[in-house]
C-alpha cells in the first residue's frame, strides 16, 4: 500500500504468468530490448554508403524551416504551394521558426483556405467535390452505423449531436460579423 513501505503482493507469480501468457518475460532482460539504450551508434550506418547523401535536384523552389541550415538533401515533392493558401504557407515558412505559434497557426489557416480554394476550383472541373462519396458516409448503411452506436457506451456519443453546432458555429458567427460589418461600412460611406 502507498502508505506503508512495501509493494502490494503480486496477484500471480512469474511461473503462473509464464504459463498463462505466451512469451511472458522473453524481453525481461533490457539487453534484449532493441531500443535500449536509447543512443546506439550504428556502425554500418544502416546500409547507407555515404556520410552525406547526394542532393535531390530542386526543380521548383522548395519551402523550408528557417531552423534548417539548408534545404535537406532529400525532400517530398507532393503538392507545391499554390494560390492564396500557398502564399500563406510561404510566409509562414519564410518568417517564423517552428518555435513560434504563428508558424503553425498560419499553416492551419492555409489548410482551411486551401480546402475552400480546392472546393471552389473543383466546380470548374468535370468532377466537382461530392460530399456524399468523399465523406464515405454511405458506409453508415453498409457497416451498421446505427447498431454501432445504439445500446453501447461510447464517450463520443453524448456530444455527437452538438458537434455540427460546434463546427458550424464559428463559421456562422464569422459570416454574421462580416455581414454586419459590411453593412455598417456601406452605411458610413453613403453618409
Amino acid at each position, binding site marked *: 500500500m502507498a502508505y506503508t513501505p512495501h509493494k502490494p503482493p503480486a496477484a500471480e507469480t512469474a511461473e503462473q504468468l509464464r504459463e498463462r501468457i505466451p512469451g511472458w518475460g522473453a524481453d525481461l532482460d533490457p539487453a534484449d530490448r532493441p531500443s535500449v539504450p536509447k543512443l546506439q551508434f550504428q556502425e554500418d550506418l544502416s546500409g547507407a554508403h555515404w556520410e552525406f547523401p547526394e542532393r535531390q535536384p530542386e526543380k521548383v523552389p522548395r519551402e523550408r524551416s528557417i531552423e534548417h541550415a539548408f534545404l535537406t538533401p532529400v525532400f517530398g515533392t507532393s503538392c507545391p504551394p499554390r494560390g492564396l493558401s500557398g502564399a500563406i504557407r510561404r510566409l509562414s515558412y519564410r518568417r517564423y521558426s517552428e518555435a513560434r505559434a504563428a508558424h503553425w497557426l498560419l499553416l492551419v489557416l492555409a489548410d482551411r483556405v486551401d480546402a475552400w*480554394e480546392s472546393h471552389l476550383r473543383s466546380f470548374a472541373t468535370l468532377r466537382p467535390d461530392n460530399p456524399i462519396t468523399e465523406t464515405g458516409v454511405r458506409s453508415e448503411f453498409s457497416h451498421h452505423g446505427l447498431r454501432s452506436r445504439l445500446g453501447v457506451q461510447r464517450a463520443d456519443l453524448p456530444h455527437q449531436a452538438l458537434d455540427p453546432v460546434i463546427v458550424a458555429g464559428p463559421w456562422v458567427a464569422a459570416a454574421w460579423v462580416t455581414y454586419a460589418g459590411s453593412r455598417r461600412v456601406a452605411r458610413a460611406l453613403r453618409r
Partner: protein
Amino acid sequence: MRAMVYRGPYKLRVENKDVPAIEHPNDAIVRVTLAAICGSDLHLYHGLMPDTRVGSTFGHEFIGVVEQVGSSVRNLAPGDRVMVPFNIFCGSCWFCARGLYSNCHNVNPNATAVGGIYGYSHTCGGYDGGQAEYVRVPFADVGPSRIPDWMDDEDAVLLTDAVPTGYFGAQLGAIAEGDTVVVFGAGPVGLVAAKSSWLMGAGRVIVIDHLEYRLAKARTFAHAETRNFTEYDDIVVEMKRTTDHLGADVAIDAVGAEADGNFLQHVAAAHYKMQGGSPVALNWAIDSVRKGGTVAVVGAYGPIFSAVKFGDALNKGLTLRMNQCPVKRQWPRLFEHLRMGYLKPSELVTHRFPLEHIAEGYHVFSAKLDGCIKPLVVPSAA
C-alpha cells in the same frame, strides 16, 4: 495510377495521378500490394495536422514490390517484395547514426522537430504515401527490407508501424519484472503495447478505452484486464483504487491527439485545432501512474502546444519518455517474436477495403463502426 487524394477535412477520393518518378539516385518506386489506415491517419483526415495539403496522398503503412530503382541502389532490385518502415530516413545523419531513425535530419525540409513520414503532411516532409498503386521510396538501401518468405502479408504490413510502435511504447516504459502497466487506448498500437508489456515481464496489465468491442479484444489478444472509462465517474480514482492507492508503475499513452473523455479538451483540439492534440489520455496517464513512475507516449500529437498537466508530472517526479518509433530498429527482435508465436499481428485486422472504396474505409474507422480495429487497403494493381 489510382491514388487516394485528400480533399479537405473529412473528405477524400480516389483519383488518377502520375506514377511517381525516381527523384534521387537512391530512390525506389514500389508497387503497393497492401496498405493500411493508421489511427494517426485520422488526425490528417480530420484536418488536425498543420500543412496537410489538398491533393496529397496519405498512407505510411504499406508493403509492395520494387518496380524500379535509382542508379545508386545496391541492396534492392526490381521484383523484390519489400516492407517499408513508416519513417523515411537517410541512415547517416547524426540522429540516424545513433538509431533515432524517426528523427532523421536529412529528409524533412519543412521541420526540424520531426523526421520524414510517408503521406503524413508537409510537416513531415511532403511525401506522398502508400494508399495508392505506386509510391516513391527514398533511401531504398536504408529503409525497406525484403519480406521473409515465412511472413504473411497482413503481418508484414502491420510491422511497418502499428506493431513496432506498440512494442516500442512498452520499451519506453522501462518495465521491470512484476510492474503494473496501464495502457490508455485499445487501438492496434495500445493492444500491441499491452501484449508487449507481458514480454517485458509485467506483473499486471490494464487497458483502458471507451469502446467495449476493443476492450474485448484487449482481453483475448493481449490477456489484459480492462476498464471502460465511461463506466467510472473518474478513471484516475479507479486506477488508484485498483493499485492499493499506489498508482501504476508505468502508464502508456497509445491514444494521442483526438482523445475523448473531456469535452473541452476534445473540442479545443479535434474541432477548433487550437491544440496540437487533446491530451486527455496523457493527463490521465500522468495522474494514474505512481510517484517516481514512468509515462511512455506513443500516441501521436501535432506540433502546436497542448494543455498537458506538466505540474503533476513534475511534482510526482515522473519520467516522461516518448518518440515516434524508429521502426527498423525493432524488426530483428519482432521477427523473432513472430516466429515464436508470441505475436500474431494479423489478428488485429478487422476490415479490408479496395482502394476504390477507401472513403468508406476512413469513415468506418473514424466513426468506429462495425467493430473496426484495423482496416487494410487493397490497391487495384496489387
